[in-house]
C-alpha cells in the first residue's frame, strides 16, 4: 500500500511540473496566476496523501486547510490587483 501511495505522490509531483511550465511560459500574466492556482490545488492534495503515508492525517489536514485559505486570500488579492489593466492583455506572446 505504501508503494502505491508513493507512486501517487510521484505522479502528482510530475503533474506540478506541467503547471510550472505554464507559469514560466505565460504568455499573459493571467496564465501564470491560473498555473499557480493549479499548483496550489495539487499541493493541497499532495499534503493529504503525505499525511496518509505517515499516518498523521489529522495534522496534515490542518496544514492543508490553512494552505487553502492562504491561497484564497493571495489569489483574490492578485486578481483584484490585475483588474482593469489594459496593457497586460496586449503583451501576449
Amino acid at each position, binding site marked *: *500500500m505504501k508503494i*502505491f501511495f508513493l507512486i*501517487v505522490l510521484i*505522479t*502528482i509531483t510530475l*503533474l506540478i511540473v*506541467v*503547471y510550472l*511550465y*505554464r507559469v514560466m511560459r505565460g504568455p*499573459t500574466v*493571467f*496564465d501564470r*496566476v*491560473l*498555473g499557480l*492556482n*493549479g499548483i496550489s*490545488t*495539487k499541493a*493541497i*492534495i499532495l499534503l*493529504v*496523501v503525505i499525511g*496518509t503515508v505517515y499516518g498523521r*492525517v*489529522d495534522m496534515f*489536514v490542518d496544514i*492543508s*486547510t490553512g494552505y*487553502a*485559505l492562504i*491561497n*484564497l486570500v493571495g*489569489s*483574490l488579492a492578485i*486578481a*483584484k490587483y*490585475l*483588474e*482593469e*489593466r*489594459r496593457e*497586460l*492583455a496586449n503583451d*501576449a506572446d
Partner: protein
Amino acid sequence: MTLIEWVELYVMSPIAIASIVVGLFFLFVAAVGVLRLPDVYTRSHAVSLTDSLGAFFVLGGLALYEGLSTNAVKILIVLILLYLLNPVIAHATVRSAHRSGLKPWSREDA
C-alpha cells in the same frame, strides 16, 4: 479477524485504490489541457476540471481508505473547502482577464 476488518481490507481498499486511480486520470487530463488549450479562458476550464473531479476522486478515495474515523471527516472538510473556494478563485482570475480586455479565442481566429 472481525467483520469490520475484513470489509476494510477486501472491500474498501480496492474501491479506494480504484477511486484514487480515476482521480489521477482526471488530474492527468487537466495537465494535458493546460498544455494544449489556446487561451486563458479555455485553460481555466481545464484547471476547474482538476479542482472538481480530480480532487473529488483522490480525496474521496483517501477518506474511504481511512475508514470510519474523524480522519475521514477531516479529509471531507478539506474537500468541501476546495469546492467552496476554488470556483471563487477561478471566477476572480477570469474576471480580471475579461476586464483587462483580453479577447477570448474562437474558431474563426485560428
